[in-house]
């Protein structure tokens, strides 16, 4: 068989496999597809799925987009963060990736390195008015591939009344102080279990909490071009040891958690005293409780050790390189990332707009917004290597091994380094 023939066979096999996968998804009524002709665009989004979000996307954004594309249709595929990689991979394999794709911070280098997303045109590639640190995750190399829609930083929420009762007068300034405060505030039931956990670590992603602590210790995940692992450092070990120590001290456990349906649940009920959590959880609670009164007992601070660190997650809007309507797709991207839309869609969901001048706007109901604005210079986001999509999913299981006492910090970091280097080696 000649090389050409062999490639043809393999392409056919790939197409058959992808076709089956895509048709299977279509059978579930949730397919996304690229669009053609007349400026119509398709959108794949893990945000906007709430009723107010849909209203904004299918109303205001679509109307603004149609001013330049009157005959265009907008087809939206609402997804969740959990299944977004699956949606992207199956649609890529089937050649049906949506024209506009919304992804997380850290996702641009892996996809840009594989030529999946289009570089933004000159008119969009030097965005001004954004908080500087939220533009960095939209870049790969010296090119810009996306614009941010909203940010969702992690802050540490705490019960002021518990701190007062416990005689803790100052906000913890190091990881050791935070660990000691959590231990001090913990109350156990006589038969085991928590009457009050000193700290609830279930409200924010465990991987992101480690990266947050790593940064606070002065450590980094990777080198600048993402080709070398740096997290297997003393700082990486210290950050992991901090989290493992919380469990070992009996201040929390992996099992301790509230229900997903109620953000900040354990903190509001007083069954926990400290909770690293996302701004969106705080914002949603503020919106749902009709203002901040319900949250008066809760204060917020930024994690710190040798320096303060504000972990920032969020949503980036990008355009598929395979889009047949790139011009229209960029127009849609422009419409959906406008300040007006950003504010309309982020606030009800608790996220924060990524713009400098409205990041602590008075109309924003998120009580953590001023703290986040004041600490924006300490922002960091995860990722930084084209192998991030592979590496990110290996971190939590390895951390769980440490937190449950099944593996030592050193062995865990060593295993993680090896897996990461393998993934980076495959780039």
């Amino acid at each position, binding site marked *: 068989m000649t090389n050409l023939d062999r490639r043809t066979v393999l392409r056919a096999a790939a197409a058959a*496999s992808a076709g089956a996968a895509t048709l299977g998804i279509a059978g579930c009524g949730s397919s996304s597809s690229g669009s053609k002709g007349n400026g119509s665009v398709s959108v794949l989004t893990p945000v906007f799925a709430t009723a107010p979000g849909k209203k904004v996307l299918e109303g205001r954004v679509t109307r603004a987009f149609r001013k330049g594309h009157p005959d265009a249709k907008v087809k939206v595929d609402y997804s969740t963060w959990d299944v977004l990689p699956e949606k992207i*991979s199956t649609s890529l394999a089937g050649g049906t990736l949506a024209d506009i794709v919304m992804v997380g911070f850290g996702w641009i280098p892996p996809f840009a390195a594989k030529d999946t997303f289009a570089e933004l045109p000159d008119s969009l590639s030097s965005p001004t008015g954004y908080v500087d640190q939220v533009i960095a995750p939209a870049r790969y190399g010296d090119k810009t591939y996306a614009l941010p829609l909203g940010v969702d930083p992690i802050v540490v929420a705490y019960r002021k009344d518990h701190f007062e009762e416990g005689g803790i007068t100052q906000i913890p300034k190091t990881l050791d102080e935070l660990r000691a405060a959590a231990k001090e505030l913990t109350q156990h039931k006589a038969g085991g279990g928590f009457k009050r956990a000193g700290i609830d670590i279930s409200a924010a992603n465990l991987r992101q909490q480690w990266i947050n602590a790593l940064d606070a210790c002065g450590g980094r995940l990777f080198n600048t071009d993402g080709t070398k692992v740096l997290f297997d450092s003393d700082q990486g070990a210290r950050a992991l040891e901090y989290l493992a120590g919380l469990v070992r001290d009996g201040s929390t456990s992996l*099992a301790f958690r509230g*229900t997903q349906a109620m953000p900040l649940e354990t903190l509001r009920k007083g069954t926990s005293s400290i909770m690293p959590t996302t701004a969106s959880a705080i914002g949603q609670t503020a919106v749902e409780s009709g203002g901040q009164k319900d949250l008066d007992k809760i204060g917020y601070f930024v994690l710190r050790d040798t320096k303060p660190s504000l972990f920032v997650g969020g949503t980036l809007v990008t355009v598929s390189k395979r889009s047949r309507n790139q011009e229209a797709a960029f127009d849609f991207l422009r419409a959906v990332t406008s300040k007006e839309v950003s504010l309309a869609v982020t606030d009800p969901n608790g996220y924060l707009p990524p713009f400098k001048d409205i990041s602590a706007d008075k109309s924003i109901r998120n009580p953590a917004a001023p703290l986040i604005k004041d600490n924006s210079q300490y922002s960091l986001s995860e990722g930084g290597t084209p192998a991030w*999509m592979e590496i990110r999913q290996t971190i939590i*299981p390895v951390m*769980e091994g440490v937190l*449950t006492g099944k593996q030592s910090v050193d062995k865990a970091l060593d295993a993680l380094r090896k897996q990461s280097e393998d993934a980076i080696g495959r780039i």
Partner: protein
Amino acid sequence: MLFALPGALHIGLWIGLPVVAAIVLSFTDFNVFKAPGLVGLDNYQEIFSDGQFVHSLRTTLLYAVGTVPVTMAISLGLAVLLNQGIRGQGFFRTAIYLPQITATVAVALVWSYMLQSDGLANRALEAVGLGPVDWLTDPSIALFSVILISIWQGIGFNTLIYLAALQGVPGDLYEAAAIDGAGAWRRFISITVPMLKPATFFVLITSTIGAFQAFDQVFVLTRGGPAYATTLTTYEIYQTGFSDFRLGVACAQSVVLLIALLVLTVVNTRTMGEARDGH
């Protein structure tokens, strides 16, 4: 011939083609970003040198050993009880079958609430003076919890099969045995169990295949954690394919799973088939 065409088309298009495609792709570096290129046996070498995949196979085997025999034994017991003409039989039959027709995702969500730190299970333990158990977050207990839930959900279907088979056992066999002085246990061992061998064979094969293909409960309950304790092979394949975007490797993992299932099915067929034929 014409009557067989729709079925043949269905099997060829929806089962045959993807299986052949998966086998072909398992020898490539297919990753959705570029056209696949042949890599020979590299993917197979990688998955067997990758402790994670081997660990997932071992976990799946443990899961199958934990779910299949227990589910079958409980189902048989329940089927025999339901076949006695007890009062409220319709209610009990419905109740036992209900978990089977409830979406696994919904079932898993409810169980996750029941098994969380202050959930129903731990409150029940607390009421009798026992300490809380980390049902889904302790690596040494999590797989047991998933097995427990799978047993609960799998009982309905197997009970139904056994119940249907029990209806076909001639009553005069029991009468004759009773006249000969055989007790209930002797009648069960010497009549019911042998007469149910075809049903047992069917249940064993379908349960084993089901156990090796279990995915939903792990996806919703534990995401394969904690610390890979509940990473079944299907979940590992899903992660490799859809999170790592390494579809060539995922296809190789799928082929290995397919071969493992074929081997198990052949072994089951040989052993159960011989027993069924009275050898």
